[in-house]
């Protein structure tokens, strides 16, 4: 259909000496637009798949251990689909074009970062570094610092949801050593401590030089949201403590064992 139309040239047009040049431009621009459309569509699909992975992972209740099989299965399935998406657009994001469609792919990559870092955290209770995340993408697709940071910002929101939901359904804050009963084990960390580490790191990051581009544009709003998320968890933990400290006379609750040991951060 498209090919058939190209050779046709109407009367006036054919009298214009510039038509060959413009036909060349048209082909170039069409290629560009097609690439752009493909990238936008892939970005949208990757965003949707990432969100679905995050939704699935929000059903996890245990930290620092393997993801339950049913959830892991769903995550794996969607990850494969996403990988295919990335592979199909990898040629469109090569060399010169790696940055050309940055604004189009950025949303998808950020959401992907959010999903990847969430899964990594649930498994290892650690923040995935940029290099490691970058290795999960096809080689030609670069992971920019901006996209990494913006994805991690949103990770805080997911960790908040994870923490609050876990408190709501199990009555305790997720932490690294739920089996140990000693409240002050060195090295045992809970989500709140991790959130506070993230908060401190974000606040120390100087983005004033970024201006209105990428990070600079969004960081102020994201910072406020991030702080509010951490404070929501702080308030939830406060609720746990205040409740747990009340002892009806002469009653020693064995329920206490199920509760998270809320340790004092050591730094």
């Amino acid at each position: 259909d498209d090919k058939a139309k190209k050779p046709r040239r109407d009367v006036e047009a054919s009298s214009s000496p510039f038509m060959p040049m413009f036909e060349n431009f048209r082909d170039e621009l069409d290629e560009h637009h097609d690439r752009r459309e493909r990238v936008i569509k892939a970005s949208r699909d990757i965003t949707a798949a990432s969100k679905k992975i995050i939704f699935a992972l929000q059903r996890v209740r245990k930290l620092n251990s393997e993801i339950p099989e049913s959830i892991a299965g769903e995550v794996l399935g969607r990850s494969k689909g996403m990988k295919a998406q990335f592979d199909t657009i990898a040629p469109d994001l090569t060399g010169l074009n790696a940055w050309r469609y940055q604004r189009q792919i950025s949303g998808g990559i950020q959401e992907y970062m959010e999903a990847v870092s969430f899964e990594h955290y649930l498994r290892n209770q650690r923040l995935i570094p940029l290099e490691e995340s970058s290795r999960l993408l096809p080689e030609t697709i670069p992971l920019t610092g901006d996209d990494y940071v913006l994805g991690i910002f949103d990770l805080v929101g997911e960790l908040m949801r994870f923490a609050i939901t876990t408190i709501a359904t199990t009555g305790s804050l997720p932490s690294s050593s739920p089996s140990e009963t000693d409240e002050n084990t060195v090295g045992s960390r809970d989500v709140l401590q991790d959130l506070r580490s993230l908060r401190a790191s974000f606040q120390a990051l100087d983005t004033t030089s970024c201006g209105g581009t990428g990070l600079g544009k969004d960081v102020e709003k994201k910072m406020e949201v991030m702080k509010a998320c951490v404070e929501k968890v702080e308030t939830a933990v406060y609720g746990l403590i205040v409740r747990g400290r009340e002892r009806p006379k002469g009653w020693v609750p064995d329920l206490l064992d199920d509760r998270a040991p809320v340790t004092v951060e050591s730094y």
Partner: protein
Amino acid sequence: MANVSETGMLDPRIFEDLQRKIDDDAETRDQLRAILQTIERQGRQTQSILSRAHSTPAAHLQPVLAAAEASIKEQVESIGKLSEIASKGPYYKYNGLWTRDVQNVIFAILLCGWLGGLAMEGEGEGKAAEAGKLLTIEEVGQILNVPVNLKDRDAFHITIEEYLQSLITLIEELARLAINSVTLGDYQRPLQISQFVKDVHAGFQILNLKNDSLRRRSDSIKYNVKKIEDVVYDLSLRNLVPRP
């Protein structure tokens, strides 16, 4: 300039003068931006240190305060440079560029002082000050080594509005600290915070503020007062603190 008709009615110096002025202005702004970038980065450092107060029991706060004081000292030096550059132009012409950063420094000083750091001279320097204290605007000026509330001459200084903005930020931070103190097992600090914040609130209540940013933000005080009252309520209800 050669292409402006030379016999024209237009004096070319008009445009030359304007160009010079625009360039001077741009240079001053560039210098201000450079020093402000440093101040902001130092400010982040100080905040980062002070935020440890939320996870450190009061008894172990001394190292945090010492680190914060050292960091604030660096900022004081930078404020000195800012003051120097700023005095190249009228104070209020560029004030909008730095007021936010200056408010951040003041807030850091107020918080550090409230936590028991930055003991003033009269109190025996070196020794830890009493916690729960509000540094006055004069004391803040002394620490920053700049004049405050200047009215008779045009020089770099700290305005009352800036001090009060930082005070509102302090209240927000203390509301968070009340929550986290309970988590740390400290039930006394929320009571101390509650009394402090009520006193400050009473002061704000008698001000006749115009419809400016100060007024808008002062609405947040009432919200934080309520939040702290909720904490005291929770503790009282469970007999974790003595009845008042």
